[in-house]
């Protein structure tokens, strides 16, 4: 809990940045993609949204798109009812047709289906007439994540988590959006600034080229908001900070290191003509508040400010670095992992249950047609046919000559299908010291053989490893078996055996998969010998008891499980855990991983 008294400078900046970003995006929604708002629903977010709405009131359109918005709602569809009534094609316009350089508000964007996201990003890429504000309410990093397809296109991220409501006030301030929109397009960006931005991006490990473009646009918008008609260093500095902050994947090497390592990199740059290579302005690193006066001074004197690329570069790096908090740095690795993999895991959310356009046919049911359904024409006409005479009489006088069948909305039947959901095989691998000593490599061999099976069945695989005090989701569900194998073979061994924790986490993960409509199969590979309790303390007896308890709880989830005992001889303790789990128990005989695979194969099928 953040206490008001501890309201730090950093929090303050987070909020003021959030307000600034709101302004920037209001000016150029299509060019900057939009905002990724990380926050639970709450007063602070409401405050921000309210402020934003006030800001754009009457100037920019903001349309809310519910998570379950279908294709028809987004891109427009045939209006069946009106069409029937008027006997000619009538289309209802979709949200994307009406948006005209406005903004879409996407609540619970982390739950968005990939189908919807695909429609949005495609429209964004091709027409590019809107920006998006995505509310991400995911609780933890491992929880659902924003679809990377979407995330990549959003220029900014703001995090309103744990900000204090009392300190957050969206300064009421009106800006003439259309005027600024006109102005910012005219602002020139010096080549040196472009170069500096890209070099900075490189040194922060930001691969996507979009980020660089977004910085450039942002800087121009900031300058225009300021009322200037040229860029100042402060503009670029702020822009870089806002755009880069959440994209940084590594910290730049210090200047000296860089020069030592790639001396060649510097040479071509020096050749660049830089005619107005004046000494940098003295206010280089002064806070933005001073910019105003500086701007005025320069306006009297029409000479444009000049930039020295290297200074700029350094300044940009410093500015971006300053916005990083320590825990952000620590999460780089994890973030990388999440971003690159979440698509495959999320691409299927819900679709398997609801993508009911193919599969085994089931009896049709009544309902309103949408893109998710197919109209069962025969059944519909059948339903309508008994009423034809009455309906014709009813319509007499209006359209007595109407040809064909008169169908009303409640005649419509929809086709239904069922589909088998996909399986996710979750390997829960013991990487503890005892396992490492004995059979880790052999267990890995068994897993590889099982992986080959998964390949044949086109399963997804996930990998959880446990050692020391914790279990960790090393690989979220993916179809890429190569990655699973690579991770597995590179997995270090050593440390205690937190079996209880592993069982608990694995069961939780299995539950999550189930809630997404997938069928999890957990394969637990361990030699048992639990020696770390649920609380992370050592103690063989307690650890074993904890494991039993967790196993009992896990059983309640009714997951399909396989316990592969990797110890030298089958252990009775392991059999007990397996039976508590309700898992199939399979000892791994020495050097015969193939036989386990045979057994597992039979179980899986």
């Amino acid at each position, binding site marked *: 809990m953040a206490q008001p008294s501890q309201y730090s400078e950093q929090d303050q900046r987070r909020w003021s940045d959030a307000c600034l970003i709101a302004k920037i995006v209001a000016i150029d929604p299509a060019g900057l993609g939009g905002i990724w708002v990380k926050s639970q629903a709450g007063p602070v977010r409401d405050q921000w949204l309210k402020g934003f709405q006030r800001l754009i009131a009457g100037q920019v359109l903001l349309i809310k798109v519910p998570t379950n918005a279908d294709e028809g709602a987004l891109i427009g569809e045939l209006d069946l009812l009106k069409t*029937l009534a008027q006997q000619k094609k009538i289309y209802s316009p979709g949200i994307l047709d009406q948006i005209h350089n406005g903004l879409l508000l996407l609540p619970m964007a982390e739950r968005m289906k990939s189908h919807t996201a695909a429609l949005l990003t495609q429209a964004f890429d091709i027409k590019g007439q809107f920006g998006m504000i995505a509310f991400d309410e995911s609780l933890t990093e491992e929880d659902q994540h924003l679809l990377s397809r979407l995330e*990549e296109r959003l220029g900014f991220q703001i995090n309103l988590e744990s900000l204090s409501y009392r300190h957050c006030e969206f300064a009421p301030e009106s800006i003439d959006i259309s005027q600024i929109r006109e102005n910012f397009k005219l602002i020139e960006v010096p080549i040196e600034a472009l170069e500096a931005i890209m070099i900075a991006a490189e040194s922060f490990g930001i*691969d996507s080229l979009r980020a660089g*473009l977004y910085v450039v646009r942002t800087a121009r918008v900031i300058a225009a908001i300021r009322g200037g008609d040229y860029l100042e260093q402060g503009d670029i500095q702020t822009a870089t900070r806002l755009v880069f902050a959440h994209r940084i994947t590594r910290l730049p090497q210090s200047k000296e290191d860089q020069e030592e390592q790639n001396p060649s990199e510097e040479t071509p740059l020096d050749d660049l003509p830089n005619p107005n290579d004046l000494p940098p302005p003295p206010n280089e690193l002064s806070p933005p508040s001073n910019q105003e006066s500086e701007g005025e001074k320069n306006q009297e004197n029409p000479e444009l400010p000049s930039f020295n690329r290297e200074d700029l570069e350094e300044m940009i790096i410093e500015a971006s670095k300053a916005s990083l908090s320590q825990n952000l740095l620590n999460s780089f690795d994890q973030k990388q992992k999440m971003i*690159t993999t979440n698509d*495959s895991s999320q691409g299927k959310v819900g679709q398997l249950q609801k993508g009911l356009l193919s599969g085994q046919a089931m009896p049709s049911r009544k309902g309103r047609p949408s893109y998710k359904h197919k109209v069962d024409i025969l059944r519909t006409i059948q339903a309508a046919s008994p009423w034809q005479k009455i309906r014709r009489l009813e319509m007499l006088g209006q359209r007595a000559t109407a040809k064909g069948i008169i169908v009303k909305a409640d005649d419509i039947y929809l086709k239904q299908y069922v589909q088998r959901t996909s399986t996710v095989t979750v390997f829960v691998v013991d990487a503890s010291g005892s396992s490492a000593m004995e059979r880790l490599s052999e267990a890995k061999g068994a897993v590889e053989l099982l992986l080959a099976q998964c390949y044949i069945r086109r399963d997804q695989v996930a990998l959880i490893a446990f050692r020391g005090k914790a279990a960790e989701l090393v690989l979220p569900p993916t*179809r890429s078996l190569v990655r699973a194998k690579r991770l597995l073979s590179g997995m270090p061994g050593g440390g205690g055996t937190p079996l209880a924790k592993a069982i608990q986490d694995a069961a939780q993960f299995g539950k999550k998969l189930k809630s997404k409509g997938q069928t999890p199969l957990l394969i637990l590979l361990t030699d048992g010998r639990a020696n770390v309790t649920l609380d992370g303390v050592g103690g063989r007896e307690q650890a074993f008891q904890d494991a039993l308890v967790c196993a009992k709880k896990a059983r309640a989830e009714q997951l399909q499980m396989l316990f592969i005992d990797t110890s030298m001889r089958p252990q009775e303790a392991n059999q007990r855990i397996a039976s508590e789990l309700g898992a199939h128990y399979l000892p791994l005989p020495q050097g015969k991983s193939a036989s386990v695979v045979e057994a597992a194969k039979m179980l899986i099928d």
Partner: protein
Amino acid sequence: MALNFPFTAIVGQEEMKLAMILSTIDPSIGGVLVFGDRGTGKSTMVRSLAALLPAMSAVEGCSYHCDPLGKILCSNCAALKVSGVKFKSQTIDAPVVDLPLGATEDRIVGSLDIEKALSQGIKSFESGLLAKANRGYLYIDEVNLLEDHLVDLLIDVAASGENVVERDGLSIRHPAKFVLIGSGNPEEGELRPQLLDRFGLSVEVKTPSDVMTRIEIIKRRESYERDPEAFIQQWSEAQNELREKIIASRKRLLKVQVSDEILIQASQLCAHLGADGLRGELTLMRTIRAVCAFENKKVANLDMLKRIAPYGLRHRLRRDPLDDTGSTVRIERALEEIFPK
């Protein structure tokens, strides 16, 4: 028409550019598969293709834009031709159709026109994306995330060049000959071998790591965004030049000689690599021919084969799902083994 970044203004990504150009010179090569990271300009390049493609003539009012001079016609046009009516032709841009990831079967293959069926009681066919893409390009972003039942549809149509609809009481067939372009990130999942096989060429793209290249990209993009029209104007000469070159290459295509020797070498290579089917050899041959035409050479040679082998075979190797040796490396190794210097 929406403005697109000019093809010729794209910096780097030479492999991908070449593959795209070759597929425009000889569409029978059969499409390009692009694998790579996000933000590498995959989509930009595909969309820029539209402006580069030479315009083509089509039967006016035909929803499949049949070629008035072509032999493959849709049923309507064929009936017209038989009855001796002269086609009115119009010049259209070659279609580049986007297939969204979540498209429904109905939208792709076409379906019963519900509106007509319900309001007028007429059974008629509402054509889908495949019809729209006829004689042009069909682009699938994130092709590896495409639903299985859609993949099945594409596999069949891409091979036969004809879309056969037998559903909702409809029985219709229409030409659907298109160049398939797919892109995706291999980390997120693999493609079915059958679909892989339908792509003629494959390229792997990476984000350029060279700072100067990256800067150049941003500079161009920036000036494009500031004033798209002016930027396109600025590059129009280069665009026209390339377009002319493609048209000229198409004409040269049939004059290129590919000797038996080269064909034998191509077969050797395919056999050595264990590439399934004969499509590998066919693609290699067609690609070599297209390269020769593009570079204005009359006779193909071994160097060309070596150069284009990775494009044509990379995705055809039967792979051990657990072996991550890059296919490109395997092809290069095979080339060295068979054709030692």
